[in-house]
């Protein structure tokens, strides 16, 4: 029976991204070794994630209430919308401290080969947000993968008729990086998106 419990925990943990079977097994053994309180707290945290956490009605970020902390913050600029792929991107942008507007989480990117089309994302909701409130600028901050690029291009085309400015975050050389190790696509992008001194 012990083996069954261990096997079950390993199997479940191995479903996590970046966790192989061996790592999952190590995690399971570690959970056994740690005090019971830890295991119970972990189980409770996971339960709360699934049962208590909601999605913000406006931006689709994770939230404990109907509106997330960012959308309900009166100090944020509601005329700026930053479109991101998922909620984890918000954390990274917030860490930079450079964006004071609101977000819109698409909950994915277009990928027909994985069965993800516009109806599977929060595209319609973005169009409604832009149409129903005075928005100055929509910034696309999707990952620079080909699916991210295509999603930006798709939404950009749909929003072309609106009065707001459409922009995208710059791509290019990372700060502290070396030009010697820069691939051709990144370098081309850095040149294309250069800015005046």
């Amino acid at each position, binding site marked *: 029976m012990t083996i069954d419990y261990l096997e079950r925990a390993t199997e479940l943990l191995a479903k996590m991204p970046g966790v192989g079977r061996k790592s999952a097994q190590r995690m399971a053994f570690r959970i056994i070794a740690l005090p019971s309180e830890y295991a119970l707290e972990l189980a409770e945290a996971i339960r709360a994630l699934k049962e208590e956490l909601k999605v913000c009605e406006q931006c689709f970020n994770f939230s404990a209430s109907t509106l997330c902390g960012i959308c309900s913050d009166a100090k944020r600029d509601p005329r700026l919308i930053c479109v991101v792929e998922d909620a984890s991107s918000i954390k990274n942008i917030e860490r930079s401290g450079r964006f004071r507007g609101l977000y819109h989480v698409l909950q994915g990117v277009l990928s*027909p080969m994985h069965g993800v*089309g516009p109806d599977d994302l929060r595209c319609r909701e973005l169009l409604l947000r832009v149409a129903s409130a005075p928005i100055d600028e929509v910034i696309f901050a999707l990952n620079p993968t080909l699916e991210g*690029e*295509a999603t930006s*291009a*798709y939404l950009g*085309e749909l929003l072309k008729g609106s009065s707001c400015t459409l922009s995208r975050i710059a791509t290019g050389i990372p700060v502290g990086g070396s030009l010697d190790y820069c*691939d051709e696509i990144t370098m081309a992008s850095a040149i294309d998106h250069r800015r005046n001194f």
Partner: protein
Amino acid sequence: MGSGINWFVGNNGQGKTSVLEAAYALLTSRSFRASTLSEMICHGHPRCQMEGSLERNGDKAWMALHLEQGRTRRRLSGKPCDTLTYVSQAKILAFTRHSVALVEGGPEERRRFLDRVAAHLENQHLANLGRYRRYKQQLQQCLGNGSDLALYQSFKHGWAALSEQLVTRRQAALKSLMPFVLDYFAEWFPDVGALTFQYRTRNVSDLGQYQKRLLSLSARELLQKRMLGGAHLDELEISLGGQDARKVASAGQMRAVAMALVFGARALIHKTTGIAPILVLDDADAELDRTRWSKVMAVAEEAGQTLVSTSEYAIIRGFERGTVFKVDTGTVRLERDGG
């Protein structure tokens, strides 16, 4: 192995081709005769592995390719390695009895050859090919799903830009390659006829409007549910005496053209990058008279490492330099150390 010519001598069916195939697969992660790597696993065995040390400009890298049914593992100096990094380590070209497909095979054979040459000249070409394939899958899925034009075009913009890059690279590679190929061809096969190459883009005549033209095909593509242009549909036309080589060339002439292409590619890559690709010649002496064979091997001897299989000791006798291995029932034994 020796740094110059390495002869693998043995009777038919002793495993000479398998040795060369293993060396080629170790460095390219691809077989020159089987369509998939798993076909290289000996019947009845669960797995096979190839390992070897690659030396270049004083640097050494230990490469290992482990094959199981449906699974390939690549390791570089002991660490797991992605395909792109792995195959970028070595430059290697092969001329085998399958190389005739370069002339008589479908356009994909010639595109693949040109892409390999372009990738040896610039690694980025390989990464672009990977991105292009993924774009193509997305677009083909859109066509299969009957997606709307807006969604289709959103993928097509990036794809068209990438396609133009690939085509530009291929054309540049071909332009640089042609003088070498034509020189070898004229020297080795002067009596065969004029050889010409032409890169043709499908459904695009004005390269100045390349992306615009590809984007303009979208509505028709959605209607017909198939792509009508792009780098994956282009053709490298080979003509002999002004006529399509696929239709008029004899088997010997096709081999001659393929051989000139492979040797031309080696010379170009050597000249451009300063690295002479390793050359694999399997069964290359077939259908070549002694004079031509000597000329071909004289070029092979000029630079870099060459791996040659032959069933005849007589072939080797004219070459005093070079390392000789005897291949007998799957066992390789050093017979002459050529340094």
